[in-house]
């Protein structure tokens, strides 16, 4: 077990104990919410885990770096950014995928673009966003979000 896992478990346990001391009923409700969200996220987690296995098993690093590596340039970043905007993966489990892509030859900018658009932009949730916040605000948020995601990715590519 690594330090992040240890830290996050201790942190969660600490919060749980504080909550339990303060209010038993609320804690019980929290655990219920936690179990529900765990099972809701589980299918996606398993998909990503299988996908990472297949990716690392079949696609050699040379191919990955050709498509999303340094030499793919701006087109590669744009491609990944579009992919991130369309797919609907909880950010939490996109990090292992992003990490393995980075290790197998993807560029920092491409990986950053993927995470940035994935978190910032929701194509699947867009109808709901329009319904709740109006067309103007929802489209502006997603549109400008896409642009700043690419700017962040480019800056990170230069920095790291």
């Amino acid at each position, binding site marked *: 077990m690594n330090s992040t*896992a240890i830290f*996050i478990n201790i942190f969660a346990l600490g919060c749980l104990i504080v909550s339990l001391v303060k209010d038993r009923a609320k804690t019980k409700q929290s655990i219920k919410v936690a179990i529900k*969200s765990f099972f809701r996220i589980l299918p996606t987690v398993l998909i990503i885990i*299988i996908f990472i296995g297949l990716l690392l098993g079949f696609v050699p690093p040379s191919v990955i770096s050709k498509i999303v590596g340094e030499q793919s340039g701006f087109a590669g970043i744009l491609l990944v950014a579009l992919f991130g905007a369309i797919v609907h993966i909880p*950010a939490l489990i996109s990090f*292992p995928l992003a990490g393995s892509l980075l290790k197998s030859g993807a560029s920092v900018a491409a990986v950053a673009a993927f995470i940035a658009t994935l978190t910032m932009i929701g194509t699947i949730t867009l109808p709901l966003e329009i319904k709740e916040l109006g067309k103007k605000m929802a489209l502006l*948020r997603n549109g400008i979000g896409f642009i700043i995601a690419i700017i962040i990715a480019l800056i990170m590519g230069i920095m790291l």
Partner: protein
Amino acid sequence: MKDNVKEMQRKGMIRDSIFLGITLIIAIILLLIFPDRREAITTASWEFFIEMIWILPAVMVLMGLFAVWMSKETVIKYLGKTSGIKGISLAILFGALPTGPLYVAFPMAAALIKKGARISNVIIFLSAWACIKIPQEMVELRFLGPKFMASRLVLTIIFVVIMGVSIERLIEWSDKKASKSIGGEDDASI
């Protein structure tokens, strides 16, 4: 509003399960066709599975706790009336708390706008909710390293604030233009 979220969750669950089935079938077929790759694939998948199973329950517990303790009403109450630097910081902080997916935040954002909160703060809140979640940052640290995580965090905060302010300007500008073109002088009357 609640029905929308519920419907979204139900649809998402069905979609995810179908995708999982398809992925499993494809994986099994590929493993049968390429037995020599079997070990590399299962090892890689297993390693990530172990990593995630150590982190995921704790993250879910944190999300559950914050969802129950930090009620929507509290967030809306505090975020609705603060502005300036304090409002921006509060919007980022509330957004970064470990709570559910983005579509849960849309009804809250709508309630905030109705309450008269600044558009910039609502956008910053939504974007922080989407991009900077505390447990997510820890997972990012684990898989992508401290340099990547820290620089993405700082850049995201900077650009999210810029985005919030510019969207507010854009919306106010277009609202003004719209009300002028109608010919009304309702700017003052609102």
